[in-house]
């Protein structure tokens, strides 16, 4: 029982304000900006640099002209003053976003983009109903149809091979495991080569579902970058997983092939692969094969991304504690079951930030397609500058293109950091 003494306080004193020489804006400034001679110099130098940049750019931005038909008109409006001529953006922004895609069909890429977000939702956000995965599964066919037009049936029929393969696997599995795998491989191939064409034709006869076809050479701008980037990543994911597993495997020969492939792709610049797509692919394929340049680029970009993806996933596989592998073995799971049920779900989860980073890199690299004659945003900026009206416009176009890329990539990188944080708490 504590006794009460008159000279002992019974209650806490209220906290006091810090002394006045340790708070306030001035103190903050002194501590953070002028804490020593070096810091003072740095601060002053930074302020000078910021002032220099702002004073040079602000006039240019503040005086910008947004409505004019040509650079000459712009200069007339400015009348000798320095100012940006963003009229080129108001005049040509549709071209920078969509290339030469017919303007009455802009709703199609827009809708495809929107649906892509819906299709990605179950992957990106945990709270979304799982049923949406079905939509994600048919999304590729839908997007292809929306973008290129034509009948909806060919892409759907091509895609139908995958459930078909799965059904074949299930049907044969009770008889023999090996045969089932073979059936799962053979069914889609037979479907594509023998049945897909006629079935598609019949279905198209019943219900046309046709959109105005759009040729590949009309694609351009950010739409093209997004198409190449997104398909490249989506297709490279399965290939990357296989390569990563191959690289980890005990089978010497498989491992050698995978390592060789990964190191080769990572060792040469993307630009040589793109040139291969545009110049050499025809040498390597059977005489007479010739297909769409966008498709060729997507194939090469897929290989490229797959090699990087494989390294990211390998990192994820290596980060898993050894115990997980041993536990899977102890449960008597075979290799594929162990990978599918235990290893990959965890390894992929760890790798998501890396995958997003690979995607950002790939998205930026899509600008290189300008070298093989595709009209990505930078290619379009050249094309716009080649016209008589806008000859000599540089900075406005660069600012616009840079800003678009920045918003996209910065958003993605923030998302990847958010994921990293979320996954970290799960893991430790």
């Amino acid at each position, binding site marked *: 029982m504590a006794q009460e003494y008159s000279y002992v306080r019974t209650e806490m004193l209220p906290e006091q304000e810090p002394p006045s020489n340790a708070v306030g804006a001035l103190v903050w400034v002194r501590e953070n900006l002028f804490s020593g001679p070096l810091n003072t110099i740095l601060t002053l130098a930074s302020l000078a640099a910021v002032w220099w940049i702002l004073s040079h750019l602000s006039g240019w931005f503040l005086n910008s002209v947004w409505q004019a038909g040509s650079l000459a008109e712009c200069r007339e409006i400015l009348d000798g003053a320095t100012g940006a001529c963003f009229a080129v953006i108001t005049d040509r922004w549709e071209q920078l976003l969509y290339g030469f895609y017919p303007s009455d069909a802009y709703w199609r890429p827009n809708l495809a983009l929107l649906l892509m977000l819906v299709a990605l939702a179950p992957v990106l956000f945990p709270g979304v109903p799982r049923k949406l995965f079905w939509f994600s599964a048919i999304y590729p066919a839908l997007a292809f149809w929306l973008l290129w037009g034509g009948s909806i049936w060919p892409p759907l029929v091509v895609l139908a091979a995958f459930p078909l393969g799965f059904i074949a696997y299930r049907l044969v599995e009770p008889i023999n495991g090996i045969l089932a795998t073979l059936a799962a491989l053979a069914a889609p191939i037979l479907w594509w080569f023998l049945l897909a064409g006629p079935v598609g034709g019949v279905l198209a006869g019943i219900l046309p579902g046709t959109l105005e076809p759009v040729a590949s050479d009309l694609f351009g701008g950010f739409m093209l970058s997004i198409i190449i980037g997104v398909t490249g990543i989506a297709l490279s994911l399965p290939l990357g997983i296989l390569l990563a597993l191959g690289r980890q495997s005990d089978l010497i020969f498989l491992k050698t092939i995978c390592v060789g492939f990964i190191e080769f792709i990572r060792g040469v610049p993307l630009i*040589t692969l793109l*040139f291969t797509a545009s110049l*050499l692919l025809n040498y390597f394929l059977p005489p007479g094969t010739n297909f769409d340049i966008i498709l060729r680029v997507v194939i090469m970009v897929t290989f490229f991304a797959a090699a990087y993806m494989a390294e990211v996933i390998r990192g994820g596989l290596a980060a898993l504690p050894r115990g997980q592998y041993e536990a899977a073995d102890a449960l008597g799971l075979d290799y594929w079951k162990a990978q599918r049920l235990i290893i990959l779900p965890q390894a992929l989860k760890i790798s998501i930030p890396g995958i997003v980073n690979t995607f950002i890199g790939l998205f*930026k690299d899509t600008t290189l397609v*300008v070298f093989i004659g595709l009209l990505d945003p*930078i290619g379009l900026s050249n094309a716009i500058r080649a016209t008589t009206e806008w000859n000599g416009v540089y900075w406005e176009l660069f600012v616009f293109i840079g800003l678009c890329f920045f918003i996209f*990539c910065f958003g993605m990188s923030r998302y990847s950091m958010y994921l990293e944080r979320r996954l970290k708490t799960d893991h430790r």
Partner: protein
Amino acid sequence: MANAADPPKDSFRLSMLVYDTRYRSITIQIVALFLFMGAAAWLVDNTIQNLRTLGKDFNFSFLWSRAGYDINQRLVEYTNDSSHGRAMLVGLLNTLLLAFISCVTATIVGVLAGVARLSKNWIVARLMTIYVEAFRNIPLLLWIVVFFAVMTESMPAPSAFRGDDPAASMLLFDTVAVTNRGVYVPEPLFYRSLGDIDLGIFLVSLDLIAIVAALVQGFYVNRAIVGRATRIQEATGIRPTTWWQSILALFGPVIAVLVALGFHLGYPELKGFNFTGGTHLRNSLIALWAALTIYTGAFIAENVRAGILAISRGQTEAAFALGMRPGRTMSLVILPQALRVIIPPLISQYLNITKNTSLALAVGYMDLRSTLDGITINQTGRELEGMLLMMLIYLLISLTISAAMNVYNRSVKLKER
């Protein structure tokens, strides 16, 4: 209990190839081998067929025929009478030069920015964050064309330097001219040059060899001096003053060699259409150099920051407790440890720089791609040979760099006991 019977010794059955784990891996590998060889044969066969249809053959003899075109930036002797192979070499050296100088400057920029981003100075840290984010999230190609446009559009033409009241003037006491055709800087010249020796493919300047030899010798002498000082310090506790000896040892021989060779600077001068004399750093080189430096620098800054943050806080506190100032703490305690984390991603950035030099295409820098894979395959129509050769060269460079990385990684690995 009766003796447990040995498991029955199965005779080998065909199905064991699939079901028995002892044989299955071999089966899979053999199947894979056949598939792989089939695919390879298919590709080669297609190529042969396609070449035959086009009436072409596969040979590299074009590398020995006359090139006929000029290259503006050449590190080794080259004229339009030289061979395509020589042009390829010139391009390769240009690629390597660009890669090397970009690696050096990107490392400097990256380390400074990475450290500055962790600075306690609010404004410096914020500025560096803006720098890193802006450059990481915008494609390199855009930066290259931006820097190129800055050079060609915003700098004065050589004609602006002409006349009695020129619109532009040279910098740094009339020694450096910044024009929209590039930057002209003074070049080192020798009155009593030793000449060159011919190594077959290269001419190597004897002057350069003499200077390097003097430098190396000075370096070793300096090491001996410092080593002696340390021994004295260990024995007596008093370190003798050696700084003037070091300076003498390091710079004395070099200065002596330079004086002996008659070293002087050749300044750029406006003559006719262009500046002559001095070293001409072309726009394309400068734009690529700046873009690669600043873009890759942003990535390196992130690596450096991550490396520093990876060092436990206790190390800093321990260093402070020993009475070290923040600067010395960083350079003596934190950075040496952080290097182990920083170097591997740093080297993969070097790899990226090397590969990204191929973007030279955007600004017409005569690198390996522009010579071998640009003009040469256009004049000769040997795209298959040219592309394969170029891929092979890039692959060799990349593999060399990764091999160096592996050696380094092994050498700095934490020795765990």
